[in-house]
């Protein structure tokens, strides 16, 4: 056994190795910063996310629950079976029982197959319904998005143009973001084993098209626009000017950007 080998020298070697290992994240963070600039997104080359601010708004009173948006989204984005990037909820509020002091009865919510095929079945007889309405749901484009906050590798991120995206070539599939999203908008894609969600049809909007759901909506319940580049008589601006708007689950501090008009207190 060599006389020179002492604890000191062994510890020095160990410290050197540890130092090397510790230096790696710093180097990799630099690399990641560069990668972030060139993050894997379906945008075309030359697209500058800093020059846009995409937003979608939902006019609940206009939604007729036809489910064409859900179908369009599934077709456009190849969404796997029984998972949804967007869906429609039907709320049925029944009349209060005769003689009770309640203002309204119970609230029944459903979304058969995400509302993809509309809502053919009646949940309660017509005469018992106090009111009924449809609420389209999708990623709420939170400003303090909990999903991007908790992603351990930064595979999900907020693009400067306001869209929350997932880099599926980077996602490790831990599912933390799915747990963190209060709106149930995320899922693990059984095909890619990575997190999946509404991308506002990023591949379309960055090429000057509307998201598939907006394009197909027959009643203009979904209003889409670019806050940084309003068009003449911009529908999004008009929506905000003419409606009292609200976001979902604002109490959680996620600052959802997606705006709803005409929400009932039962919607969450």
């Amino acid at each position, binding site marked *: 056994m060599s006389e020179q080998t002492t*604890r000191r020298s062994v510890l020095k070697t160990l410290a050197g190795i540890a130092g090397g290992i510790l230096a790696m994240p710093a180097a990799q963070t630099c690399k990641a910063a560069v990668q972030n600039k060139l993050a894997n997104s379906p945008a075309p080359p030359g697209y500058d996310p800093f020059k846009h601010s995409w937003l979608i708004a939902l006019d609940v009173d206009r939604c007729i629950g036809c489910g064409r948006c859900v179908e369009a989204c599934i077709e456009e984005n190849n969404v796997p079976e029984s998972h949804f990037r967007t869906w429609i909820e039907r709320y049925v509020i029944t009349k209060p029982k005769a003689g009770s002091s309640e203002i309204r009865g119970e609230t029944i919510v459903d979304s058969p197959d995400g509302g993809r095929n509309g809502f053919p079945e009646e949940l309660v007889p017509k005469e018992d319904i106090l009111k009924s309405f449809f609420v389209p749901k999708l990623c709420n484009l939170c400003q303090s998005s909990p999903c991007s*906050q908790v992603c351990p590798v930064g595979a999900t991120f907020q693009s400067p143009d306001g869209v929350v995206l997932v880099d599926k070539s980077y996602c*490790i599939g831990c599912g*933390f973001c799915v747990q963190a999203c209060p709106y149930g908008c995320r899922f693990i894609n059984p095909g890619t084993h990575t997190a999946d969600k509404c991308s506002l049809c990023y591949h379309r909007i960055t090429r000057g098209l509307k998201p598939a759901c907006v394009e197909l909506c027959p009643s203009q319940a979904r209003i889409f626009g670019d806050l940084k580049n309003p068009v003449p008589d911009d529908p999004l601006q008009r929506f905000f000017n003419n409606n009292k708007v609200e976001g979902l689950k604002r109490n959680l501090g996620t600052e959802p950007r997606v705006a709803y008009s005409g929400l009932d207190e039962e919607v969450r």
Partner: protein
Amino acid sequence: MMNASLVTNVMEALPQIQGYVYPNEQTLHPLWSVLIVVYPYITGLVAGAFIMASLVRVFQVKALDPTYRLALLTALAFLLCAPLPLLFHLGHPERCFEIMLTPHFSSPMAMFGFVYAWYLMAVLLLELWFDYRRDFVQWSLTEPGYRGIIYRAFTLGVTDLSEPALRLDARMGRVISIVGIPSAFLLHGYVGFIFGSIKANPWWGNVLMPIIFILSAIVSGMALCVFVYMVLCWARRIAADIRCLDLMTTFLFYALVLDVSIEGLDWMHRLYSAEEGIDVLRSLASSKLFYTLLIGQACLGTMIPFLLLGATQLFRRRIKELNRRRAYFSSAVLILMGVLAMRWNVVIGGQLFSKSMRGFMSYKMEFAGSEGWLLSIALLVLPFAILIVLVRLFLAPELPTIENVVPGAKSRAKAQEAGH
């Protein structure tokens, strides 16, 4: 064909869902399944076993000496298995190193690799090495065959057994142990934070979660030490040191008192403040989690050991030694099961209701497959298998004790001479 599979899916899913759940939540299995139950359980056992060991090292509780090394080796065996359930659970396990290479610092999970590496490399392995170095040197001289080679490799070439060198070993061991206590808290507190930081989930998002996780970890780890020590003594047909057991279970009892208080406080606060989602949590506790929460965790896993250990504290002199041993062993086993039930209740319970607060999901565990209970049981047995190997290598009764370093060296030299 697609429709047929859809129909079967719906047929299977329908009875398992009550009320309204978001369409993406309508899956047959929770996203974080039984593997993620096993993960915090194993991590907690590591932290608790280490705290047990540090009672000897840092707080100089001499009576616990017989369990010091056993506790450290137990912690090591479980720590080696701690990342496995996570790894098996990932959608892309091959990308797991991204957590350490390009960590996203705002994520509680991103810290796992660092906390784990720190705990394994800088705390547990170093402490074991400083504690064992003297023995390694000696055993490398006395033990023949592959064992000798293993021990020689573990000396890392440092064979200096002079008085100052040994004193330095002891001091370093103590310093690392002192650093190790907050590290153990960090390791498991952070696991609690993974759940506690999810504000979307009222079952998880709770400021007390890391503390509850730490306390239950200490309780389970101490119970594990009692269990392992008693089983080891039984396997070797020697009597477990009753003084040591008495003291171990005293510490276990006080840890349990703290744990019960904080968990009780958590429930009192939840029920009293009755924030959004309390109805969901209440019905969860009384229906889907009735057996694991009220029976498994609260009654069998907490109250009975609490009473048993409390009785042995109060009436130690009046209870016969054999009965005390029985009470200690059954308390340890019950606590181990109770804490497993607690992990189940947190992880699975948090995924049995919709974030819409309007409905419930069910969980039917698979047998085989990556999310099945077979793999989970294998992952729970694996640390014990590793521990058996570690005990055979480093705690074997035939290994010479620390005191006779020089005679050992001489006998090795003699053996060599005889061999030649």
